[in-house]
């Protein structure tokens, strides 16, 4: 381990860091708007979490990402053990076993597992230099990713499992998939999908998928969230109802206002204008992250930047499509804006890794 070099501070992408902090503060505003009438000072807690996450991001910057990649095997082992323990010991929160208590903080190990997977894939594909993946390599990577994925599905945390699949798929695309492999993977995914639907999926999860097709079929049950969220967004109009003036969120028709549905609050209270600004900021953030691949000095760096960016992009897209009824309600938060420590920490650490790669683009050999 080495301390941060003075020279390196000048290489930090301050614009990207600024965009992250800006998004987080926008989130705090609307967390405040939707929870100020509840006890618990959610906005203050979110601010504390932003502070904690920022410290974590800076700590990640201090260490060369190559070192993290070299340790990824240990991280992987730890992660599998943690996920297995979670499954056994975690208390039930909202019907899923995804939370463990670490002292004062509650953590979702599955959130941190995403970070570990970024490093593991960087390690797996760093030395892989041919244009396309071989069957052997594909199966190996699937095996490595499959163990934590199954543990997460068992919790069951459908949202995180989907995010996992997105990272795996992204890594494969980057490594190069032949047409034959794509067909095989699609077939495998279909088989798993159909099998999972009939065997593994809980009734409430099935309902969420059928509700996507017909939300009015169950307006008081699982369709309720989507209907109320869509009403909130649609009634916001062009300029919105004003800060803290959203009837849907203030009168609590909107479920999970400060977590998964924070963007609905923004849509209701600031209208299309606010939606446009936040999506534009997000676009800038994602562009800056994705396009950093050009600055990576090695293959591991490219994989880290790409999978981390894809992680944020996937959650963002699924969330904004889910709350407006274009995707099933799967419990995926909006990175940086939604209330919640684990998700915030994971997003910050993922961005920390991107910044890390970017600022060490010149090999210091």
């Amino acid at each position, binding site marked *: 381990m080495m301390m941060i070099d003075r020279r390196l501070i000048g290489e930090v992408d301050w614009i990207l860091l600024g965009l992250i902090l800006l998004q987080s503060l926008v989130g705090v505003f609307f967390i405040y708007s939707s929870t100020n009438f509840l006890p618990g000072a959610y906005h203050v807690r979110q601010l504390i979490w932003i502070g904690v996450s920022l410290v974590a991001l800076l700590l990640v910057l201090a260490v060369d990402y190559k070192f993290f990649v070299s340790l990824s095997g240990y991280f992987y082992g730890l992660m599998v053990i943690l996920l297995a323990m979670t499954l056994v010991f975690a208390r039930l929160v909202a019907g899923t076993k995804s939370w463990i208590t670490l002292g004062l903080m509650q953590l979702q190990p599955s959130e941190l597992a995403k970070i570990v997977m970024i490093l593991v894939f960087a390690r797996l594909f760093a030395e892989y230099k041919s244009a396309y993946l071989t069957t052997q390599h594909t199966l190996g990577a699937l095996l490595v990713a499959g163990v934590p994925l199954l543990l997460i599905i068992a919790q069951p945390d459908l949202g995180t499992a989907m995010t996992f699949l997105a990272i795996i798929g992204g890594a494969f695309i980057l490594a190069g998939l032949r047409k034959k492999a794509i067909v095989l993977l699609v077939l495998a995914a279909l088989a798993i999908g159909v099998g999972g639907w009939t065997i593994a999926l809980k009734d409430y999860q099935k309902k969420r998928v059928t509700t996507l097709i017909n939300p009015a079929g169950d307006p008081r049950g699982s369709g309720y969230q989507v209907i109320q969220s869509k009403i909130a967004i649609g009634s916001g*109009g062009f300029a919105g109802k004003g800060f803290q003036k959203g009837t*849907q969120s203030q009168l609590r028709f909107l479920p999970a206002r400060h977590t998964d549905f924070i963007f609905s609050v923004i849509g209701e209270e600031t209208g299309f204008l606010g939606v446009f600004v936040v999506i534009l900021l997000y*676009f800038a953030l994602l562009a800056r992250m994705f396009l950093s691949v050009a600055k990576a000095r090695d293959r591991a760096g490219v994989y880290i930047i790409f999978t981390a960016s894809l992680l944020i992009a996937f959650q963002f897209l699924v969330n904004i499509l889910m709350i*407006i009824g274009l995707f099933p309600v799967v419990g995926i938060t909006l990175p940086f804006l939604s209330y919640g420590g684990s998700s915030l920490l994971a997003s910050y650490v993922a961005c920390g890794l991107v910044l890390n790669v970017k600022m060490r683009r010149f090999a210091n050999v």
Partner: protein
Amino acid sequence: MPENRIYEDLSLVQRRANTVFWIVAAMIFLALSYYWKVQILEHKKYQGLAEANRTRMRVLPAPRGLIRDRKGGILADNRASFKVSLVRENVKDEASSHAAICRLLGIDEPTLRGRIDLHKDLQPFEPIIIADGLGPDDVAPIESRRLELPELIVESEPQRFYPGGGLAAHVLGYLQEQTPEEVLARPNRKVRPGEMVGKTGVEREYNDVLRGDDGKVYEVVDSLGRVHGTTAATQNPVQGGDIVLTIDRDLQAEAERSLEGREGVVVALDPGTGRVLALASSPTYDPNRFITRFTPKEWIALMSDPDSPLENRAIRGLYAPGSIFKLVMSMGGLSSGMITESTTFYCSGSIQIYGAIRHCWFAPGHGAMDLSDAIKNSCNIYFYTLGRRMGIDTIAQAASLLGLGRKTGVDLVGEKEGLVPSEGWKMKTLKTPWYPGETISVAIGQGQLQVTPMQIAAMTAMIAERGKRFRPHLIGGALEPPAVAEELPASGTMPRFTPAEYEGVIAGMWRSVNEGGTGQGAKVADFDACGKTGSTQTMSRESAERLKRAGREVKTHSWFSGFAPRVNPKIVVTVLVEFGGGGGATAAPVAGRLFDLYKKDLATKLETTK
């Protein structure tokens, strides 16, 4: 490039990463355009949905109009009460919620279930009334548990209150909750489910006047139904219109007092206008007990009571008129020319007609009787003989000319028509010819004849007014119809009765009360009452005599109907006491008391106007 040694060629993966980014960018753009569609193009639709979401219309029930008697005394009032409603949507756990509600309201689970099932077709967010008629102390424990029981709503509601208890209960009627089926059956009426509406009596007849217009308030509610203020458009309720009845509280009270403990009817009319001054039907009930929506036990008890206290006997009780019918016989006899006032028949106590021996009620016989003697003494032999002369169809025509066999048209729902038999009627309904012997029974008001006390009162009023007939009515004040004499339709070939014919009958009625006739119990000094008694056999003569031999007394229904004074009549009183015995002994004194009371009332009024 020299750096190629240090930096590997990453262009392929970087190109792929860029491609994925642009796919992501395209999806962001598509998402944004969908937001445009929802927020800009479909804004109106979602704005409407958001409004409907957060506002809830609550009905502010209008207090019903007051009902007063002719002197201004309040017969039906309103008082403040509370009702508790359940919003099923907000029930978290049905079992524990129902248990808590039953404990707080002191009702049992089946009752609560029954209420909810009755209104199960309402939307889950629409409140179902589960308790009403509550005082502030009853609802305090619920108010204090507001947060634990978001499914309960406590609202105030004006409740009907009858200060006189059972006073004029059959006139006023009672309220009952409008059931969802009734609302569906008549969808264009503005009555809402759960509203208390008049079921009988004046409350029903004038429900549209009394109900007023409900107000509306649009409340802003949250997803738990908690109220966060109201929107501007509050519509205040408008109290229903007051109603003044023609009922005289004092006469009514006296009429009810005199029937206490008996089954019977007292009707008092103002013959010159048709105003109903008193209408008592006994046994009675306290309508205050039905004002709540939940008194099934008492309700069922009243419904199944063999004495049917809920029935208004004055308009729905069918009785044989007995000797009262001799007034019809007399009018018909004079009009058809079968007798004159001075025609005399001899009563020996019994007579053989159509091969059967018939008796007078006075076994020794009345001797020679002219018309007024016969009315005064209610001689059966006289009217047997007259009946044989007239025949059933002439009798039926006379009865019809006096309004029997048809509704009087009093403003109360459910009035019965009664029955005046005739040859045609019997052939049509019973498919057998008329036997002359039956005419003899009808001649003294028995047989198949059926009348309501209201019909007898209206007929008496018509006699008192010497042929002018005014429709009996309860509505007074501004809503009272103008006093225009009614023309009953012509009946067969019989011409309308002449004033002279009326005077002939009235002479007999006057003597009945004032010269020691059967109606002398109704005599009031200086009030010149005229009347006729009746005692109606409630079973055939044969079975009555059999019971009498067995030592059991069979009482007849006791009638009196009369008016006072003889000239310029002011009041008609008709009394019927079921199983009251002789009309002279039981019914006439009741009428006498009412005559006396009304006479004093007129005197004080005269005093005050002077």
